[in-house]
């Protein structure tokens, strides 16, 4: 530990702000690593403390819909936020088409391409059924029957059968395939779910296994062409294949900070506002008090428009403001190191807010599973 040379003053608010800001300059990014570790600053603790963390940790919600959630986690380190993000993408199980049995496919789309397209279609169904009833399928071992491990609680059976024919009642001069042919387009809604064994108990009515979006185009057919396919869905993880990822995207960005250090007035202010996303910078008239305050830089500018930071969260941190010489030394850009704006888009099997909670649960389970193993470890020394 660092040698203590008598008590030092606790860090000032500015110093804490400085430590908590990643500097964004014209060509460089500074102050990127966290320093909140014991022994890093003399006379400062920084040890892990659950209660201290509880007091400082905050969640702010911005949007919460079934397929999109946005919220801020404030007061965590990047390593923790990133663990949650990684778990969201790759370690939450979901159900997807894994095996495609092609009985007949005379369409122009090749079997393997069709199989790949089918795998990527997101499906949904009873949450309880998918999470609690459905379990993981195991590949049968050598010598085992190929269906020895296939049961109603680990496999969902689907069928897709479509045959394209001429429509007798089609208008004579029509060139629209929808009018001319029956089944010219095969959509995700044409996939039928075939309940097995105990599945009807969970997956019936509104809870049936179905594509999240019924309008996904799978293949196009012409008269005489036919698709006849059976499919098996299994549970899997995003680390195995992206089709098993329960999210469309799960990402975070750091909260941008914009500090105007010297007055930006009049036409400059308008130009300044145009350097940022709409709504980030607002223009306000200089008040009488500001104009009276000596050394503020506003003296004699009462009523002129000045640039003020209104909503830094909207900013994309394009650094455009740093390219113009008139703003040099007047603005400081940065990002708050411990403020993560998460954005989670669910693919449909889970609600977006549930997904994050599940990610937290999985991280806890990971640590919980390893802890007894550390105690039971064989010591090699």
């Amino acid at each position: 530990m660092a040698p203590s040379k008598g008590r030092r003053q606790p860090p000032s608010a500015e110093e804490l702000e400085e430590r908590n800001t990643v500097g964004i300059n014209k060509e460089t990014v500074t102050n990127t690593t966290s320093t909140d570790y014991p022994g890093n600053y003399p006379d400062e603790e920084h040890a892990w403390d659950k209660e201290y963390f509880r007091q400082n940790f905050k969640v702010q919600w911005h949007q919460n819909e079934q397929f999109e959630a946005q919220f801020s986690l404030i007061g965590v380190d990047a390593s923790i936020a990133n663990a949650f993000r990684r778990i969201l993408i790759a370690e939450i199980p979901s159900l997807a088409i894994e095996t495609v049995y092609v009985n007949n496919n005379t369409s122009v789309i090749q079997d393997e391409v069709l199989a790949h397209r089918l795998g990527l279609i997101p499906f949904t169904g009873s949450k309880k059924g998918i999470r609690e009833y459905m379990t993981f399928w195991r590949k049968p071992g050598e010598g085992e029957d190929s269906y020895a491990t296939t049961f109603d609680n680990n496999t969902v059976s689907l069928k897709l059968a479509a045959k394209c024919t001429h429509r007798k009642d089609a208008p004579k001069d029509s060139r629209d395939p929808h009018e001319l042919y029956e089944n010219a387009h095969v959509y995700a809604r044409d996939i039928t779910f075939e309940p097995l064994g105990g599945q009807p108990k969970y997956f019936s009515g509104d809870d049936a296994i179905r594509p999240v979006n019924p309008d996904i185009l799978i293949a196009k057919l012409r008269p005489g062409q036919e698709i006849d396919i059976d499919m098996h869905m299994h549970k899997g993880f995003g680390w195995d294949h992206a089709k098993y990822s329960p999210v469309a995207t799960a990402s975070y960005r750091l909260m941008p900070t914009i500090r105007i250090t010297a007055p930006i007035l009049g036409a400059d202010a308008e130009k300044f506002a145009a350097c940022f996303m709409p709504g980030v910078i607002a223009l306000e008239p200089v008040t009488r008090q500001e104009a009276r305050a000596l050394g503020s830089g506003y003296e004699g500018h009462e009523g002129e428009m000045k640039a003020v930071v209104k909503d830094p969260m909207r900013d994309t941190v394009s650094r455009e403001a740093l390219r113009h010489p008139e703003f040099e030394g007047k603005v400081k850009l940065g990002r708050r190191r411990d403020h993560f704006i998460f954005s989670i888009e669910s693919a449909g099997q889970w609600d977006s807010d549930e997904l994050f909670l599940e990610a937290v649960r999985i991280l806890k389970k990971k640590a919980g599973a390893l802890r007894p193993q550390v105690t039971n470890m064989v010591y090699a020394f």
Partner: protein
Amino acid sequence: MAGKTRARAAEAEEVDQADITMEDAPPSAQKPGYSQEEGSAMQEDEGEENDVAGEEEEEEEEEEEEEEPQRVRILPGSTETAASFEFLKEGHTLGNALRYIIMKNPGVEFCAYTIPHPSEDKMNLRIQTYDTTTATAALAKGLQDIEDLCDVVADEFWTQRDKFNAAQNK
């Protein structure tokens, strides 16, 4: 499957005998007779699935948990206060989170993690401590701290979600 694994282990031990002059190999070298294939990904999945399903039958869940293969080991060359651990089937997700939380322990002098090779599903963690604690204790505390952190995050997250939803519905 089990027979196969045993055969593989035996084969590896033979290699160990032949390779006896390699004693000076660095501590990160793979230990022979330690099959990575022990318990395929699918088998591990089965264990996890039982966690969810087993809520009704506690006994069965415990049985399954005992069967989970040992995924942590201490690497040769380690001492009480300076040890390297090897985790199987873990990556940056746990590695970096664990590194952060262990570095937060005042008894720890140094902590870092690495993934020695991208095609091996392994994560190595190095911990060096002061005399006040041991590397293994610091690791166990780190894992416990992560669990505590997850509790706090989950609590606050869901409370704020409920508040937000209530405010939206007004």
